[in-house]
């Protein structure tokens, strides 16, 4: 075979596959033995499945051998069990032997054999299904049972009918899926109990020989189990209801009828009557109900109602149901519900609901009174809002959300008793939005009109330009404050401006403000003040000075009086005595107040502290220095008098008038100067001469006031708080003489009181006539003797003053530049 195969393969190769490909002929495929089966352990059959036939008619041969023998036999009977099978009859079947079976397929080209199959007869036994299944039902003593009968499977060999089978039966209600299987045993009939009445059952059986496999299930048989025959169970009265308080109906629910036709009877008795009546009308209200018409309906009477169910097996009566018709009234829902949207005066929409009582209910006679309740909710809402409206048949609903769709329902019930009706069918109403078109139109028109007007107005404005502007807004007159340099204002350097205004410490302190007021009070004669000159910026300071002096409060900040005010800063100096004052000025003040003054002054000033205390103190000493010391007493006490008098008053008469005072003061002044001298000596050796001179002056001239030539331009400062009189020499800064007002030859006579400032400060004006003649040589000498010192003093002193001063611009002013004392503000 192999050789043939090889040769055929060679042929295939040699003939380039065409011949084989065309004919498709080949040797047969491998057959397969499907199963071997014995129906009754005495015979058996084997079946096989052919492989491919190779395109040619095949012959199949079954060979078998027994385990006990070497010999190979062929199938004894190919026909009995059908095609492709081999039947082994009793003679060829040995239950104690294992058969080895193969099937060979053969055609013209070659042959092929199946795998060998080992067969043990006892293990391949499987009988056919039982036959002739028949079912019966029987009922005895109210029990239904099922009787099933069948026959064992038929066999080809009738002689083997003596075989004993075991049977199984299974059954289920027709509509169910799960089977209930019952082991029957060897009998061929079975009785099934505990069946459900009225159910159709399906039954099958199968069998088995002691070993082996179960047969197939037999074909199905089904049977209907008849219903039971029982007396009915207790029916239940569900409810009784009167829809209009005139008739009523009761319904009941039948229980199990026992599989028999059952009649239901409603019986009732009324309170106060022995007689039992039957339902007057079973039909009107439908099945399982009883309708009591008006004739049969009484109120304020208890009905005792029962329902009896009866069939041929017996009857059963429901529990009694006690009914007082008054309390079972449940009307129908209201009808004719209308929803109407109305608008109030305020145009707020509100909902008007109207409805009618249910048609059955006779509310007009007063027999039945209904109360209503309505509920509503927005369509998408969850919770109902329920409103009890009483007996009225309309309702107005306010405060509904506009733009929402509402669902409305109404139901009703008799007053005080009975039950609520069903809810009426849902009614829908859409509340329009609150948006009022009319109003909007009005507003739009108003808006358009107003914008139009605005446009026109602006157009006119543009066209007419300044004329209109001028008409509507007349030009504001420019500031006409004398002395304000507009140019400076324009340049916008605020610092400069401020300094020009003289108030270095900005904002002004309270001290400044105090002075301001006082300064204003003692306004000086206008004559002596400089006329404002706008021409030269160099004169700014003076202008400002003047301005401030005359009218602006700020000027007071700049006023010379500020110096002493500030000089009082030194810790509470003893005030009453001038001596103390002066001494204090030189002593403590020298250290404290002047120091403070210097340090507090602007950057331009020389730091006196660092350079030398002397120079600072010198300033202090110097300022009052030359003559001031002399006039110290003069200032304070007399100042008041002078102040009381008008300005420009020649001091002399006043002084004369006050000689007594002067006298009294004088010695004190002396002591003062003694002290001063001492101090000066101690502290400042360089100032010795000055003090000496002063003293000499005092000594020489008994009354310095009598000698006007001794007088310099002097300011008398009275520090109010401490009442320290201070004499300040106001250096005349006349033409060309800038810083060095005390330059020799400039001594003047001060005969006029220029201003009395602040009740404490006396501003003296030099006598123009005597200006040229040196009044006092001592001061001149002093200054000349100490040119360096004086220079230092001056520089220091001026440095502490306003920059304008240091610039030396000031000229022609009888006033001391108040800004020179500005540091004292600090």
């Amino acid at each position, binding site marked *: 075979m192999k050789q043939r195969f090889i040769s055929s393969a060679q042929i295939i190769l040699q003939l380039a596959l065409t011949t084989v490909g065309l004919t498709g002929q080949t040797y047969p495929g491998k057959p397969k033995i499907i199963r071997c089966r014995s129906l009754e352990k005495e015979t058996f059959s084997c079946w096989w499945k052919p492989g491919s036939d190779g395109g040619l008619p095949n012959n199949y041969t079954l060979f078998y051998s027994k385990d006990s023998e070497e010999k190979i036999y062929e199938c004894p009977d190919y026909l009995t069990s059908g095609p492709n099978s081999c039947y082994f009859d009793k003679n060829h079947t040995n239950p104690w032997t294992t058969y080895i079976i193969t099937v060979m397929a053969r055609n013209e080209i070659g042959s092929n054999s199946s795998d060998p199959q080992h067969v043990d007869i006892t293990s391949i036994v499987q009988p056919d299904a039982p036959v002739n299944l028949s079912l019966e039902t029987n009922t005895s003593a109210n029990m239904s049972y099922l009787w099933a009968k069948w026959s064992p499977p038929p066999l080809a060999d009738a002689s083997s009918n003596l075989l004993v089978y075991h049977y199984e039966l299974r059954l289920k209600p027709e509509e169910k899926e799960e089977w209930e299987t019952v082991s029957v045993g060897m009998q061929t009939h079975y009785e099934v109990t505990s069946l459900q009445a009225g159910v159709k059952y399906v039954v099958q059986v199968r069998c088995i020989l002691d070993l082996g496999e179960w047969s197939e299930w037999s074909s199905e048989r089904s049977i209907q189990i008849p219903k039971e025959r029982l007396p009915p169970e207790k029916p239940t009265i569900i409810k009784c209801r009167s829809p209009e*308080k*005139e008739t009523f109906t009761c319904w009941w629910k039948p229980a199990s009828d026992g599989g028999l036709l059952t009649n239901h009877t409603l019986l009732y008795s009324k*309170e*106060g009557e022995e007689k039992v009546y039957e339902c007057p009308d079973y039909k009107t209200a439908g099945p399982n109900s009883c309708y009591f018409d*008006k004739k049969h*309906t*009484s*109120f*304020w*009477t*208890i009905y*005792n109602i029962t329902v009896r169910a009866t069939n041929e097996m017996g009857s059963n009566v429901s529990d*009694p149901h*006690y009914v*007082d018709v*008054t309390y079972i009234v449940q009307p129908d829902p209201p009808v004719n519900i209308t929803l109407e949207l109305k608008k109030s005066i305020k145009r707020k929409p509100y909902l008007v609901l109207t409805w009618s009582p249910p048609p059955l209910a*006779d*509310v*007009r*006679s*007063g*027999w039945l*009174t209904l109360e209503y309740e309505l509920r509503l909710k927005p369509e998408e809402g969850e919770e109902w809002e329920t409103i009890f409206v009483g007996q009225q048949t309309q309702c107005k609903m306010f405060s509904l959300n506009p733009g929402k769709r509402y669902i409305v329902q109404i139901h009703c019930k008799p*007053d*005080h*008793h009975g039950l609520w009706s069903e809810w009426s069918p849902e009614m829908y109403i859409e509340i329009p939005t609150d948006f009022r078109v009319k109003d909007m139109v009005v507003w739009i028109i108003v808006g358009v009109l107003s914008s139009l007007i605005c446009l026109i107005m602006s157009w006119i404005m543009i066209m007419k330009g300044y004329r209109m502007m001028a008409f509507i807004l007349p030009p504001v007159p420019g500031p006409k404050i004398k002395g304000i340099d507009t140019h400076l204002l324009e340049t916008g350097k605020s610092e400069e401006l401020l300094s020009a205004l003289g108030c270095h410490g900005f904002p002004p302190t309270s001290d400044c403000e105090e002075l301001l007021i006082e300064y204003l009070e003692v306004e000086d004669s206008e004559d002596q003040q400089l006329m404002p000159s706008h021409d030269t910026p160099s004169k700014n300071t003076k202008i400002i000075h003047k301005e401030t002096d005359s009218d602006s409060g700020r000027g007071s900040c700049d006023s010379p009086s500020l110096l002493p005010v500030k000089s009082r800063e030194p810790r509470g100096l003893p005030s009453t005595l001038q001596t103390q004052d002066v001494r204090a000025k030189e002593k403590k003040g020298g250290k404290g107040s002047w120091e403070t003054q210097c340090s507090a002054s602007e950057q331009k000033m020389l730091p006196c502290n660092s350079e030398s205390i002397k120079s600072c103190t010198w300033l202090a000493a110097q300022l009052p220095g030359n003559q001031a010391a002399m006039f110290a007493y003069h200032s304070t006490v007399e100042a008041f008098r002078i102040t009381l008098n008008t300005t420009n008053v020649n001091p002399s008469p006043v002084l004369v008038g006050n000689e007594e005072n002067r006298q009294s003061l004088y010695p004190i002044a002396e002591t003062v100067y003694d002290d001063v001298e001492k101090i000066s000596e101690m502290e400042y050796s360089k100032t010795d001469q000055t003090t000496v001179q002063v003293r000499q002056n005092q000594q020489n001239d008994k009354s310095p006031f009598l000698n006007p030539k001794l007088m310099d331009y002097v300011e008398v400062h009275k520090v109010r708080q401490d009442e320290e009189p201070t004499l300040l020499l106001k250096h005349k800064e006349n033409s060309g003489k800038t810083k060095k007002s005390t330059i020799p030859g400039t001594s003047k006579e001060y005969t006029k009181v220029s201003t009395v400032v602040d009740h404490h400060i006396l501003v003296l004006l030099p006598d123009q006539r005597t200006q040229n003649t040196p009044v006092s040589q001592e001061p001149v000498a002093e200054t000349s003797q100490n040119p360096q010192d004086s220079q230092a003093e001056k520089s220091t002193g001026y440095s502490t003053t306003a920059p304008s001063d240091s610039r030396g611009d000031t000229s022609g002013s009888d006033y001391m530049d108040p800004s020179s004392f500005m540091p004292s503000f600090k």
Partner: protein
Amino acid sequence: AASTGGTLTGLLLVTLLVSHMLLTKEGVTSMPICPNGSVNCQLTLEELFDRAVKLATYIHFLSSEIFNEFEERYAQGRGFIAKAVNSCHTASLTTPEDKEQAQQIHHEDLLNLILGVLRSWNDPLVHLASEVQRIKEAPETILWKAVEIEEQNKRLLEGMEKIVGRVQSGEVENEIYTPWDGLPSLQLADEDSRLFAFYNLLHCLRRDSHKIDNYLKVLKCRLIHDNNC
């Protein structure tokens, strides 16, 4: 000429008057305000009926409440309702049992029946109000209602007598009234029996109060609104 002038002025006056009436729109109603002590000043029948109906409704409301409360508290599962059949002391008064009967009966008879029922309740209500205090753990709501019903019943009786006096054409009939002998039952030692006696009394009270309420409403609609309420 003078007469024409007079007629003209008269016409003018009439027009003025009419226009004034039209303008004010307020016709003079026949509702004189009664001064105190006035003899002829009476409430209208409608007002009397309104008040009577309100009162009857109120009494029925109270008796329903008191009955429900009592039933809930003391009568659960005791089957009192079955025993309560046909045991109201006013059962002997034949009253209309349905709408037809209520509409057919003469209103004077019906009024007298109402009076009779009300009178029949005078006595038992007094006892109820006192005896109900002895019920074990009687809630306050039951107690005050019993008192309230008793008082309101008297008021209603007064009002009804007034109405009857107004409506009655002939002589007032002899006082109809059925005596009540239930006091001993309210004082029974056996709690179950005693509670049943209360239950029954309250049950009857609820029924009769409803009857009266219902009859009064029917009468009102019939007499005042000509059956068109």
